């Protein structure tokens, strides 16, 4: 350990400490849950908010970005719920089962809980914590466990969220759509925590959407623990469409079994500062994972994707592909680490981060890392950042396509490469329409 002197608390750190001591008696869950919260908060306090001298946060200085800690969001009133129904959750009108959270609280009256498939159960995390639900107790804080500060804060403050179980062999036809909507009138902080357990041979698609008011500097810290058992097939999509001034921290912790298929996609178009974290553990052989993401950023938006994929056993294939389109003064960060443990022979992992810079002042930072302890693996990574290819543009223009349209075609193709990873055709289409709309607004 280096002997760095712990700095005096920032306003945000002080605010978080005050909030925790006030709220801990009323946050859901007693006994082991309360102990988990205490431990998580003391883990946070020992380190404080991470800053640029903390390697994992060097491109996203949370201490500088988070000037204060917003008060914990109050339960939504009728007005907030009404506003929430107007929110744009980026999924268009695809068929789905909506599970709605307003200001961090489950809103059953806005959700669709009718005709649940046999073997699909959906409940509230706050209730599960309060009742000491054994399934939640079995997994909480244990799925792809890590010592990440944002996750620790989430554990300390977790309020509500979804608890979903898909029983063995059950195939859920329509996507389960978790809508996390901020709709309060004053800037507040929400801490949602969800658990999704997909049992052996089951299949489901889980979509998370984040939305909130523009012009309000609210704070979102959300986490999802995802257990994917052997032979299961899971698609997880996260759509970050927060209001333009929001601070969004979210974390996925996924533990994947053997012979499984896992497709993950994150789409970031909203928020002022976004940190999207993925902690993935491959614990069974012959699993195939496709981890994709796309960012469309403009103005002074900052989006950081931080991924840690750990292969504990061999014969798994993972493909990571992240694409960023960066306009104006925006900044895209990609940190990806693939860890291949000694026993994980025949791991096949490829990670790629591409950034397209549309302005002179946009910035892309990429830090791909491989940590390989096995000796018979195929692993690779690459990162590129650059402007649109002039020769391609000339070719399109020489066929009569004007500059703007030519740029849009090429940008759509660039993003489309990552969006292709989504298996749901309707959602792919909706997202590509989003990309087109974003480009049209730019022109």
């Amino acid at each position, binding site marked *: 350990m280096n002997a760095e002197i712990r700095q005096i608390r920032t306003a945000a750190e002080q605010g978080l400490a005050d909030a925790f001591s006030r709220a801990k008696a009323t946050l859901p869950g007693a006994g082991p849950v309360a102990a988990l919260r205490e431990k998580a908060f003391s883990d946070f306090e020992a380190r404080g908010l991470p800053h640029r001298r903390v390697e994992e946060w060097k491109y996203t200085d949370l201490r500088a970005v988070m000037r204060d800690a917003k008060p914990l969001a109050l339960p939504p009133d009728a007005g907030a719920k009404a506003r929430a129904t107007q929110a744009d959750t980026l999924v268009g009108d695809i068929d789905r089962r909506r599970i709605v959270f307003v200001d961090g609280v489950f809103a059953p009256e806005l959700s669709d809980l009718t005709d649940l498939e046999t073997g699909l159960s959906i409940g509230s995390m706050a209730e599960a914590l309060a009742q000491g639900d054994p399934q939640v107790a079995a997994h909480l804080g244990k799925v792809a466990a890590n010592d990440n500060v944002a996750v620790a804060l989430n554990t300390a403050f977790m309020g509500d969220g979804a608890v979903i179980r898909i029983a063995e062999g059950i195939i859920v036809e329509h996507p389960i759509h978790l809508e996390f909507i901020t709709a309060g009138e004053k800037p507040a902080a929400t801490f949602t925590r969800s658990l999704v357990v997909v049992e052996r041979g089951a299949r489901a698609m889980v979509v998370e959407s984040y939305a909130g008011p523009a012009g309000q500097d609210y704070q979102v810290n959300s986490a999802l623990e995802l257990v994917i058992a052997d032979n299961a097939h899971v698609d997880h999509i996260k759509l970050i469409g927060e209001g333009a001034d929001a601070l969004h921290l979210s974390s996925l912790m996924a533990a994947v079994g053997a012979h499984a298929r896992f497709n993950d996609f994150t789409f970031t178009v909203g928020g002022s500062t976004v940190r999207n974290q993925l902690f993935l553990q491959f614990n069974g052989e012959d699993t195939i994972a496709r981890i994709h993401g796309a960012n469309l950023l403009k103005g002074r938006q900052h989006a950081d994707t931080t991924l840690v994929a750990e292969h504990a056993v061999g014969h798994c294939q993972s493909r990571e592909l992240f694409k960023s389109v960066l306009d104006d003064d925006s900044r895209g960060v990609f940190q990806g680490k693939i860890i291949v443990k000694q026993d994980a022979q025949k791991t096949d992992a490829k990670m790629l981060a591409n950034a397209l810079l549309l302005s002179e002042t946009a910035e892309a930072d990429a830090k791909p890392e491989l940590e390989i302890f096995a000796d018979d693996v195929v692993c690779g990574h690459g990162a590129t950042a650059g402007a649109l290819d002039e020769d391609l543009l000339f*070719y399109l223009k*020489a066929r009569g396509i004007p500059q703007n349209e030519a740029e849009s075609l090429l940008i759509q193709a660039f993003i489309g*490469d990552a969006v292709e990873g989504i298996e749901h055709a309707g959602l792919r289409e909706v997202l590509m329409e989003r990309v087109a709309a974003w480009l049209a607004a730019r022109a």
Partner: protein
Amino acid sequence: MSLLEVKNLHVEIDGKKILNGLDLTIEKGKVHAIMGPNGSGKSTLAYVLAGKEDYQVTEGDILFEGESVLEMEPDERAAKGVFLAFQYPIEIPGVASMTFLRTALNAQRKARGEAELSTPEFLKLVREASGKLGISQDMLKRAVNVGFSGGEKKRNEILQMAMLQPKLAVLDETDSGLDIDALKIVADGVNRLRSPERGFIVITHYQRLLNYIVPDVVHVLSRGRVVRTGGKELALELEASGYAQYQQDEAA
């Protein structure tokens, strides 16, 4: 009025002079071949006509149907009816050939104040044009030129030309990299488009292509200027004697 008049054109790239007072007049309904040794400025002429940015016109003018195009963007020139078949057609990953063709066609129609084509009209046009060139539906579904062989790429250029129906088609070394069968398909595609309303500039290093696309006029380019103009027999003469006499001029 001539279709194209290039007057005393001087062009440089990165400060290096490539064209030195080039004069050239192209008439409607005629096929003009431009031949010349490597480095004589043939491809530069093609790019400058299409409006590629890197090339700086320092003197002279290019008149298309009497109107100067020097200040026009490449897409404006295309909408006016200028088409360049690239020597090295570019691969465009992620942009489907059909999308590309339709976007290009409708952009040109829009620029000319014409209505966009309906989907059935467009599909009918593509099917007809691609069938004649032996371009499969599968190729059209793929991204533009991605994974195409050299011959397929050149056929794809001719397909684009057939779809866009330009007034002036500039073919930049369309024969390079083609075997004889592919060359015949491409040449047939070009010959089908010959019409009294359309002019062609066929740029080539070798006479071979001109056996299949028979020119009305042959120009010899050397050191960035047209140094000789003649009939189709000039191409045969060059085939026999080579470019040595023109390169000697350069050395002198």
